[in-house]
């Protein structure tokens, strides 16, 4: 042979250095993210399944058991062909709850630390034969190529090398939150090299030995026994057992689980893997018979297990290709499996046994513990190799691990598809199956004189002779395991937390979380509580990370958001410490309050989960979801405000009308309590919710200085479960402010109208006698010379004139309302106000009064100029009466687009508070008796109403004195057309 051990070890070193370089380049970000996350990289990284057993063992298996070797490749291909059904739920679970291994899934699903620990111990023991097989394969391939008599020391050095690289590759970060992109790309490269080298060996055999496919067909024609040797074992009935073993164990193997789920960089790549991985393994499987026949035809100088090397050796070229394929398969599998197993040991054996210390650096401790575990696992693999591995064939060692992996399958199927399976069933089933495996397969390998206990004869295993009859052991152990799991699960009770976790894991069901109240009330409470076990720095960092994940603010206090924060923290810590330690840590440090009465389902959370799940619903479920959406939308779009409350008073519904009414978004209200709402809504709603009355038809509320009128109703939501307390409350809120204003206007107008009618009648009835009195008084004045009588007559006439003025105002008032029948044009406000001022200045009482007409030129409104003149005369007259001569009366106008606002402002004594509300009512006046009729402002109101305008009063305007009347009238040019046609 032309190779030395040193050369081959150097090749191994060089190869591993190359892989590390690939990983390093990837982690430095020198490879484009599109390439790193490409589904093809994921597919090739899953090629880690094809270990040295695929390169060497399958050819030996094909030699011994014919076409049965296909089961190894077909089993895993079957799993991936059904990826959307079988693997997608597992991927969903692992990504949602940060579960990094099968032990994590079991510990999470069965809510038991023991389940995690038991799975880890069994997995490590079960994997040792396959790990030792890799060491053996590399050591023996070096032995074959170099003629080295003792391969064990080669195995030792290879083991050390792998320990170093496993640490370099995977144990540089402490948390599973950070995926190892470098590792994924390196393993994908490893698979590419492995498949290429293996295919090259086959091509070399096909063309080097047979001169191409035709030569092969010809050779097969000459040696029909080769084909019959391939077909014959198919008829012995072991095919079903084989395919099942490889099918189910493919998922639970730690290295496959690690690459498929924990290091999944792109969840959608699973879809591509559903056809990509079977295609990759189809290529490898196609090479196996070609290599087998090439080796047989060329009389390869190796055992069938190493025909991949033998072909090259016999033809004199390419032996290194076989070595490289085996080296790639072995190193990839060893690195990934050790990383996966070390994570499991850390989370389920080391951390639960040694409490966390806040004084130390948590991340650093975890990292070093993991490195020690990697070394320990590889040391155990080497030990197994020295004890038994070297003396048994690759086929035997491989089969040992595959049957051990089968023991986790009932538990996993239960976790995904059977919510009634419980931890007692899992323990009983796994222990039974694993014991059977150890008694019938492991012990005969470790200790040759071992005899299978006779009691196993009861289940048909009395004539099993070690690994050669593994098929029977596989079937018996998995049936035994599954049946015991089912029976014990049915007859033993299940805890509530386990039931909740079971619902979270079950395929096709949505987690129905319950709302329990947390002791912690703020985010700082969280940091404080976690500082004890994690240390203040780590606690703050983890809480901030969870806040970022959820996009929640540090100031958050809503119970709903704090519950989500707790869940997220548990999930994140689960990636760091494993689910059982993380769950315990949260229960100890951030417990829920002891339950008072029934807790209610977290409907909001269910809804958000349903939204994420939408694409996956089909059939009846999709129809029901559409119906749910319809009802939800109806409630959301309802034009009156609706609030729904849970049984514990938490707000779980807040519709759009509520948002518009209160100006508070549902994001700020959902999950909080009514008391926490801003004022005045909090007090109003909380009082109404607590009160006994179910209906408050008219509730006045002052919101930001504005008067609001609300109508409130409430009703209890009946529980869906009979004989249970009420499920919550629904409050309906209607804004009736507009209705109230309209009612008030109507009543006012009605009052004015009746007063108008009365005034007309009174004026008519009084007018005649007053005229008569005035005539008589004139007569009296003309006929008498007595000064006293003349004075009396003059006073009578003066009083009758006053009566006449009052009667005339009554008549004017009663005639208002004829506006609608008249045609209006533009009224120039500035000119009208100026005219009113001129009229007022004629009055001797107001001659010295100062008026400032600041109305904008060109401000025109729609109306009757005479009646608007009357409005201004009344308002300015009132203002002049209330003011001193020195203080000016200011009149301004402002264009508001649709209308023009006119302000009449004085600095007089103001309107007394008791009159303000009723100022526009008839016969209400602040003037002394005899000075005013109380009809002026009522007339103003009436005229402005007729002009489709509005008038309001502000008094005092500077806090003590002054009055401001504000009139709004439709602007001419915008609404004149519509008004004129009315």
């Amino acid at each position, binding site marked *: 042979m032309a190779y030395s051990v040193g050369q081959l070890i150097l090749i191994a070193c060089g190869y591993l250095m190359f892989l590390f370089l690939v990983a390093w380049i990837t982690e430095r970000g020198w490879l484009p993210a599109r390439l790193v996350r490409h589904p093809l990289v994921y597919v090739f990284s899953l090629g880690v399944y094809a270990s040295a057993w695929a390169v060497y063992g399958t050819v030996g298996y094909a030699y011994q058991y014919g*076409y049965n070797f296909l089961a190894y490749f077909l089993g895993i291909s079957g799993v991936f062909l059904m990826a959307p059904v079988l693997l997608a739920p597992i991927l969903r679970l692992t990504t949602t709850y940060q579960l990094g291994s099968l032990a994590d899934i079991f510990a999470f699903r069965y809510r038991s630390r023991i389940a995690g620990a038991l799975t880890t111990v069994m997995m490590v023991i079960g994997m040792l034969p396959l790990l030792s097989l890799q060491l053996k394969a590399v050591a023996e391939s070096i032995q074959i190529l170099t003629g080295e008599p003792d391969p064990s020391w080669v195995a030792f050095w290879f083991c050390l090398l792998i320990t170093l690289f496993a640490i370099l590759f995977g144990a540089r970060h402490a948390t599973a939150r950070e995926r190892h992109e470098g590792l994924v790309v390196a393993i994908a490269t490893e698979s590419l090299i492995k498949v290429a080298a293996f295919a090259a060996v086959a091509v070399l055999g096909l063309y080097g030995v047979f001169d191409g496919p035709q030569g092969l067909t010809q050779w097969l024609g000459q040696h029909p026994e080769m084909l019959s040797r*391939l*077909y014959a074992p198919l008829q012995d009935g072991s*095919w079903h057992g084989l395919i099942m073993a490889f099918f189910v164990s493919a998922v639970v193997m730690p290295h496959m689980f690690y690459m498929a789920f924990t290091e999944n960089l792109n969840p959608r790549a*699973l879809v591509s893997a559903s056809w990509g991985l079977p295609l990759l393994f189809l290529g490898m499987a196609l090479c196996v018979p070609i290599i087998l026949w090439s080796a047989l035809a060329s009389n390869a100088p190796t055992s069938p297990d190493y025909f991949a090397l033998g072909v090259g050796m016999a033809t004199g070229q390419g032996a290194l290709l076989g070595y490289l394929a085996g080296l790639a398969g072995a190193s990839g599998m060893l690195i990934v499996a050790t990383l996966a197993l070390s994570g499991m040991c850390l989370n389920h054996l080391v951390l639960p046994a040694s409490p966390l210390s806040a004084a130390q650096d948590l991340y650093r401790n975890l990292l070093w513990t993991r490195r020690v575990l990697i070394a320990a696992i590889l040391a155990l693999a080497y030990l197994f190799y020295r004890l038994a591995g070297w003396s048994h064939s690759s086929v035997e060692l491989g089969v040992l691990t595959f049957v051990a992996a089968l023991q986790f399958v009932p538990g996993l199927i239960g976790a995904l598809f059977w919510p009634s399976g419980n931890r007692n069933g899992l323990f009983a089933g796994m222990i039974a199956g694993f014991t059977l495996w150890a008694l019938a397969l492991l012990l005969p390998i470790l200790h040759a004189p071992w005899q299978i206990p006779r009691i196993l004869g009861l289940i048909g295993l009395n004539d099993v002779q070690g690994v050669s009859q593994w098929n029977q052991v596989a079937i018996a152990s998995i049936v035994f395991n599954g049946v015991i799991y089912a029976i014990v699960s049915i007859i033993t009770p299940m805890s509530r937390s386990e039931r909740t976790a079971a619902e979270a894991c079950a395929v096709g069901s949505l987690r129905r979380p319950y709302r329990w109240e947390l002791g912690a009330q703020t985010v700082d409470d969280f940091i404080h509580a976690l500082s004890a076990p994690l240390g203040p720095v780590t606690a703050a960092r983890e809480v901030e990370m969870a806040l970022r994940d959820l996009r929640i603010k540090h100031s958050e206090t809503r119970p709903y958001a704090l519950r989500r924060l707790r869940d997220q923290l548990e999930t994140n810590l689960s990636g760091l410490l494993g689910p059982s330690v993380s769950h315990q840590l949260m229960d100890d440090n951030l417990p829920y309050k002891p339950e008072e009465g029934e807790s209610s389902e977290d409907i909001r959370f269910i809804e958000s989960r349903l939204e994420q799940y939408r694409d996956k619903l089909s*059939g009846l*479920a999709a129809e029901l979801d559409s119906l749910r959406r319809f009802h939800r939308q109806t409630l959301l779009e309802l034009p009156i405000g609706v609030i729904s409350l849970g049984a514990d008073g938490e707000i779980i519904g807040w519709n759009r009308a509520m948002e518009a009414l209160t100006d508070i978004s549902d994001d700020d209200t959902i999950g909080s309590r009514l008391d926490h709402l801003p004022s005045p809504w909090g007090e109003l709603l909380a009082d109404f919710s607590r009160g006994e009355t179910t209906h408050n038809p008219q509730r006045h509320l002052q919101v930001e200085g504005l008067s609001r009128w609300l109508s409130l109703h409430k009703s209890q939501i009946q529980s869906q479960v009979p004989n249970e307390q009420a499920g919550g409350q629904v409050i309906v809120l209607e804004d009736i402010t507009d209705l109230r204003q309209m009612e008030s206007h109507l009543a006012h107008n009605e009052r004015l109208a009746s007063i108008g009618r009365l005034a007309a009648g009174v004026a008519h009835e009084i007018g005649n006698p007053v005229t008569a009195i005035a005539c008589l008084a004139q007569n009296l004045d003309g006929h008498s010379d007595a000064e006293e009588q003349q004075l009396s007559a003059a006073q009578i006439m003066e009083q009758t004139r006053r009566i006449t003025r009052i009667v005339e105002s009554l008549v004017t008032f009663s005639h208002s309302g004829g506006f609608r029948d008249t045609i209006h044009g533009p009224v120039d406000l500035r000119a009208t106000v100026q005219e009113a001022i001129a009229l007022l200045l004629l009055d001797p009482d107001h001659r010295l009064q100062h008026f400032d007409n600041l109305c904008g030129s060109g401000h025109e409104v729609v109306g009757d100029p005479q009646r608007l003149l009357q409005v201004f005369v009344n308002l300015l007259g009132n203002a002049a009466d209330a003011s001193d001569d020195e203080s000016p009366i200011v009149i301004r106008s402002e264009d508001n687009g649709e209308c023009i606002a006119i302000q009449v402002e004085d600095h007089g004594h103001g309107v007394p508070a008791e009159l303000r509300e009723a100022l526009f009512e008839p016969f209400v006046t602040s003037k002394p008796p005899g000075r005013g009729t109380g009809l002026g402002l009522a007339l103003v109101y009436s005229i402005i109403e007729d002009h489709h305008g509005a008038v309001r009063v502000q008094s005092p305007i500077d806090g003590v004195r002054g009055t401001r009347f504000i009139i709004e009238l439709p602007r001419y040019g915008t609404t004149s057309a519509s008004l004129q046609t009315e």
Partner: protein
Amino acid sequence: MYTDRLLIIFILGTYLLSPAIIDWWSEGGRAWYRPYLIWLGLIALSYWIARSRSRDSDGL
């Protein structure tokens, strides 16, 4: 969910009916590549399903 259950039943049925497939494959004689043809057919079917699935929805 119903689709998934039907698929599981279908696969279980195929698994139980596989003796017939194995018989066909064993009678291959020199056409030793027959099992690979079945396998390739399954991959093509899976590819087709994956493509139509990714067209229908964004996720798995």
